[in-house]
């Protein structure tokens, strides 16, 4: 009898303990906002993961402060154009994220593509929407001799350097050629579209053409030295990730922006291409974007072939790189049908104010872009890599909202963001 009296409360106690254990195990606990895998992705997108600016062995003055000072002057100088009105900064406007707000860039004429941003390009391997250049300096030289952009010639530009920048130029690069000898150095000469200018170039002695091209190359290398200082700045997204990885509750993003971020790294598959701290894999993809300018734009299939024979590529005589430093070019994929209709994946950092969007300004707003990617329509060239996402209007709005959180001024001194 006495034993029973002891057993009953004991059984009750054991039962209660068991119930407590079950309750603790089964009780719904708040789920962490981000899984361990999500946190890895967030950290990879964070500006803290960007790393230092990589060296550019193809440009021996890439990190020369004197070259950067000269490069900034050249970048903003409209005298390097056929009509005296076009500088690099005419399209790459610092107040518009180094773009111009136009669907297709306008210089002396109109191009067939949108102006690309400058900030962050010191991390790039390929340049232009089709990747037809492989360094910042080679990129800078393209528009200078394009008939639709600066529309001048390297012969004219060498004369302009001699007239306005002789001392600065020679302090960095050594003596200019004897440009006052008009018989050897015509006022307008270069391998350009204009037949008279091209003919004058062809009539020049080979060593004089080389001397002019060397000046032209040095202009590009100085411009690169300037552009390397224009680094991407920290956005609200970056502040949010800094909080999250440190285990702090963050108020940097709204609930809608967080929802958009979750879709961005999740079911919307944006990070398939917009991955890494620049929100781009630096490669080329066919997303079926409609043509935006007259004529067919084949994209990367043309650019990949062009860069292999580019006068100024990493393996050219004008590059300062050893051939062993040109692996991107050595292992370049060119000629493959997969490249048809591919365009460069742009960085999404500070994207919100850079419209109109895509390679020829096909979409006026980011909402249009997200709606297009949601539908994944067939494109005009090759085969789109996209598949329909089936997002709701609310989900699309969330993604657009998140992209606003990537706004950030460049990480560069204010004096670099205006004409010197």
């Amino acid at each position, binding site marked *: 009898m006495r034993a029973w009296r002891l057993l009953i409360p004991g059984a009750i106690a054991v039962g209660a303990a068991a119930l407590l254990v079950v309750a603790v195990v089964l009780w719904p606990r708040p789920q962490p906002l981000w899984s361990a895998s999500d946190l890895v992705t967030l950290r990879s997108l964070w500006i803290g993961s960007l790393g230092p600016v990589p060296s550019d062995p193809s440009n021996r003055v890439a990190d020369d402060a004197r070259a950067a000072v000269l490069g900034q002057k050249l970048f903003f100088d409209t005298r390097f154009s056929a009509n005296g009105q076009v500088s690099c900064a005419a399209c790459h406007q610092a107040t518009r994220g180094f773009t111009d707000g136009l669907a297709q860039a306008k210089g002396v004429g109109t191009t067939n593509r949108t102006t690309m941003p400058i900030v962050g390009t010191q991390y790039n391997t390929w340049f232009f929407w089709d990747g037809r250049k492989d360094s910042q300096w080679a990129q800078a030289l393209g528009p200078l001799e394009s008939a639709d952009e600066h529309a001048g010639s390297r012969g004219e530009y060498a004369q302009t350097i001699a007239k306005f920048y002789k001392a600065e130029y020679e302090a960095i690069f050594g003596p200019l050629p004897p440009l006052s000898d008009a018989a050897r150095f015509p006022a307008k000469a270069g391998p350009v579209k204009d037949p008279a200018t091209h003919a004058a170039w062809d009539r020049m002695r080979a060593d004089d053409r080389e001397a002019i091209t060397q000046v032209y190359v040095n202009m590009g290398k100085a411009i690169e030295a300037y552009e390397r200082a224009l680094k991407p700045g920290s956005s609200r997204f970056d502040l949010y990730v800094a909080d999250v990885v440190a285990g702090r509750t963050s108020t940097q993003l709204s609930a809608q922006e967080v929802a958009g971020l979750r879709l961005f790294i999740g079911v919307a598959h944006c990070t398939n291409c917009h*991955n890494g701290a620049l929100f781009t894999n630096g490669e080329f993809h066919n997303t079926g974007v409609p043509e935006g300018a007259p004529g067919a734009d084949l994209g990367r299939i043309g650019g990949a072939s062009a860069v292999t024979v580019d006068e100024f590529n990493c393996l050219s005589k004008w590059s300062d790189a050893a051939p062993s430093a040109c692996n991107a070019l050595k*292992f370049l994929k060119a000629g493959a049908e*997969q490249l048809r209709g591919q365009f460069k994946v742009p960085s999404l950092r500070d994207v919100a104010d850079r419209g109109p969007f895509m390679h020829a300004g096909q979409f006026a707003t980011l909402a249009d872009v997200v709606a297009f990617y949601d539908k994944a329509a067939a494109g005009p060239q090759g085969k789109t890599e996209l598949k329909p996402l089936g997002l709701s209007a609310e989900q699309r709005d969330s993604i657009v909202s998140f992209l606003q959180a990537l706004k950030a001024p460049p990480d560069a001194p204010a004096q670099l963001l205006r004409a010197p």
Partner: protein
Amino acid sequence: MNRRVVLMLVAALALAGAGAGASVLLRGHAVTPTGTVVPSAHGVFRVSYDTSLRPIPINTMHTWTVHIDDADGRPVTDATIQISGDMPGHGHGLPTAPQARALGGGDYLLEGMQFQMSGDWYVDLEIQAAGKIDTLRIDFTIS
């Protein structure tokens, strides 16, 4: 034991059992383990591979090494290797055009390997040696 643990155990058992076999299924995608010998599609060659960076990163050029033996286990020293690859259902292919060069003793260095997305991938090797040709698919996942 939750579903994730069960899957991991199944995967571990599958990997352990792979031995000299071919790819194993992991979360629905085949994975060809590094360092194990895999027969080519028609058994002409026996191949193993390894990567210079582990785990394989995205957007970073690196090298792979491949060792090729014939069906009798003798090193194949004069093979030419064509390299291609893609992600199932994507269609963009590799972002680069990797090249293979012989290191001697049946070893080959695959240079210019790069992958631009995380997810499931395959690399196809078309191996030609001594008048014979065969292919090998290497499956892997970048997480």
